[in-house]
């Protein structure tokens, strides 16, 4: 039976990914997030509804075009300033209605997020099925926080299994447990974050504390013993790049044999241009990537502890 409902809000489908699960995978990014991590490299995934993005480098200017001006925007949010030629967006007035998008011939104006059915997503994912079979890959659903669309996600993953595609999700687990209960039965591998240990610091840097996250993680490990979990920490210099946090995570995952690994994801700034597309401020301007020495030192701690644990089994 073909599953055509429900629909989900999809941000992007990225082929030939090798960093989000085993083998060659296709990443499906869903829109909407339950946290506000200051280092987020996908700011367009945060808002739960379609939103306007504007790339001024693609704009061909008022003289050559100007189609988006002159009343297209019902809020008068698109304008040209002074002697300039490229348009600008008044983000305070923009309501993300998208009226300007179809008139832009250069795709400088676009909408992040579109509704897709389960079949539409998987028909695209399935194009690379030969690579999945050869490499042990499959589909990874990420975000944002993919579990915020539990009905769509569960249906998508169930159908993926039906089509013989291995499934993985990337999640921070900051969702009601009922969502996880619905989704995890259809997941082969759960890549999940341990961003910060202290709840007050977690709230400061990620927008909310981690009490629910830790409770969900523990419950998920125990409720789904046959599902594989892989812990990750996005390593942010001056925030969580310390031995204490790494050891706390190792201690947290130690009792659970279905947590098969723990890796560090060094902070990067690849996504900072997208803040400009959304008229937002990137709050990590003064941060740079962790040094190789820091990464090596913390990785050595992980290797030592995990090796000791494996040896004692």
């Amino acid at each position, binding site marked *: 039976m073909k599953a055509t409902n429900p629909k989900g809000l999809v*941000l*992007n489908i*990225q082929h030939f*990914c*090798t*960093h989000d699960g085993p083998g060659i995978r296709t*990443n499906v*990014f869903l829109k909407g*997030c*339950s*946290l*506000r991590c200051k280092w987020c*490299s*996908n700011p*367009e995934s945060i*808002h*739960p509804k379609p939103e306007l993005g504007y*790339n*001024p*480098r693609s704009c061909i200017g008022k003289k050559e075009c100007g189609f988006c001006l002159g009343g297209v925007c019902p809020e*008068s*949010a698109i*304008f040209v*300033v*002074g*002697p*300039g030629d490229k348009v*600008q967006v*008044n983000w*305070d*007035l923009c309501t993300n209605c998208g009226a300007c998008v179809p008139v832009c011939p250069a795709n400088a104006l676009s909408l992040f997020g579109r509704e897709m059915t389960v079949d539409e997503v998987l028909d695209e994912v399935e194009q690379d099925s030969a690579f999945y079979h050869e490499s042990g890959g499959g589909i990874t659903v990420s975000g944002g926080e993919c579990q*915020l669309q539990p009905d769509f996600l569960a249906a998508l993953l169930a159908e993926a299994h039906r089509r013989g595609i291995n499934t993985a999700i990337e999640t921070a687990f*900051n*969702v*009601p447990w009922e969502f996880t209960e619905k989704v995890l039965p259809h997941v082969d591998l759960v890549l999940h974050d341990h961003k910060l240990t202290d709840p007050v610091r977690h*709230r400061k840097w990620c*927008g*909310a*504390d981690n*009490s*629910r996250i830790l409770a969900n993680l523990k419950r998920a490990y125990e409720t789904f013993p046959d599902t594989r979990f892989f812990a990750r920490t996005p390593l942010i210099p001056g925030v969580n790049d310390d031995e204490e946090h790494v050891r706390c995570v190792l201690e947290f995952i130690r009792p659970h044999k279905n947590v098969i690994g723990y890796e560090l994801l060094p902070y*990067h700034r*690849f*996504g*900072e*241009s*997208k*803040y*400009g*597309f959304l008229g937002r*401020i*990137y709050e990590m*301007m003064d941060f740079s990537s962790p040094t190789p020495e820091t990464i090596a030192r913390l990785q050595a701690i992980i290797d030592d502890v995990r090796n000791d644990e494996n040896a004692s089994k």
Partner: protein
Amino acid sequence: MKTETRRIAINFGGGYAPGLNAVVTGAVLAARGLGWDIVGIRDGFDGLLFPDRYPEGGLMGLVPGIVRNLAGTGGCILGTGARSDPFHVRSVNADNIVEELDRSDELLALVQKEDIDAVISVVSPGALGILLKMHRKGLKTVCIPKSVENDVEGTMLSFGFNSTLSFVAEMLERTRQAAQSSQKIGVVEVLGKHAGWLALQAGIAVCADAVLMPEIPYDLGKVATALQGNFKAGRTSGLVVVAEGARPLAEPATASRVDAGVKATLSPGATGGSGSHVIDRSGRVAEEVALELQRLTDRETYPLVLGQLAKAGAPTVVDRQLGLSYGAAAVRAIAEGRDGVMVAFQAPDVKFIPLAEAINRVRAVPVEGGFVQTARCLGISLGD
């Protein structure tokens, strides 16, 4: 003029400018002169929306005794609402999910509950849209624009610009001395996202070698030629002033390109290398210009970023007087029954421009105007 007793409020949007306390002083003295009560809302609208954050209360009663010696001081007695937008207020719900809520209706109700008849909001031009939306919902508001870059359309002189200009000119002079002693080219980035007034006027004041600004896309080859001419004439150092919004005529060939595959995987949809002009990053322009001039001139360069330093400090007498005038004029506007307007200084008068006409405008430097001609006459390269 109506003189019945009324109660008004004043608040400040995100970002400092020299003279904010002068604005408070002007508004308080004018309001009290009419027999009105005036309160300050702390940190933009946060004092009303999040009163629990303030042990002394989210509103501050303002009387002449509090502001008597305030006009000449830096900072802002009421705080400024960094990114305070009542239409997108970040909250954590019962499920621990972070979301942005529209609390504008609630804000209106709180304003009414506090018996506030009108609000004077001191905001950057970019935030006028928020006040326009609040006005359309029923908030009685008079706005005072603040911009140390002097880029407010309709206003000849924004308060804060004179103080910032003085500071920047002093810093440029110090940079010149440092460049002379080390025989290098100093490249100083100053504020000026949309308009180059600060870069141009400060550059003229110190007779810089080059001034680059948003209104005139630059060709660094032309700047390098000008600098080389100076070196041939016996000079051993240089000074280049760059507004943060200045753009090259063409994308620099040296802009780095990150492996597209890695970037696409880790952040799908991201574009541009570190030389991308999609976002505004303090220091970016200074770095790029310094590096490219070094390549073109074979002279060592060093970038320097004044950034937000320029916005701090006590106001000059000019800005003190302007701030007081703006504050008093806003009260006068309310007394005259005006609503949904922006105060604009059009010498020698103060005018009131409807908010709908004030948004989406920038007062840019006229490229054929007097200041640009002066710069050219002084031999300052504008990169064109």
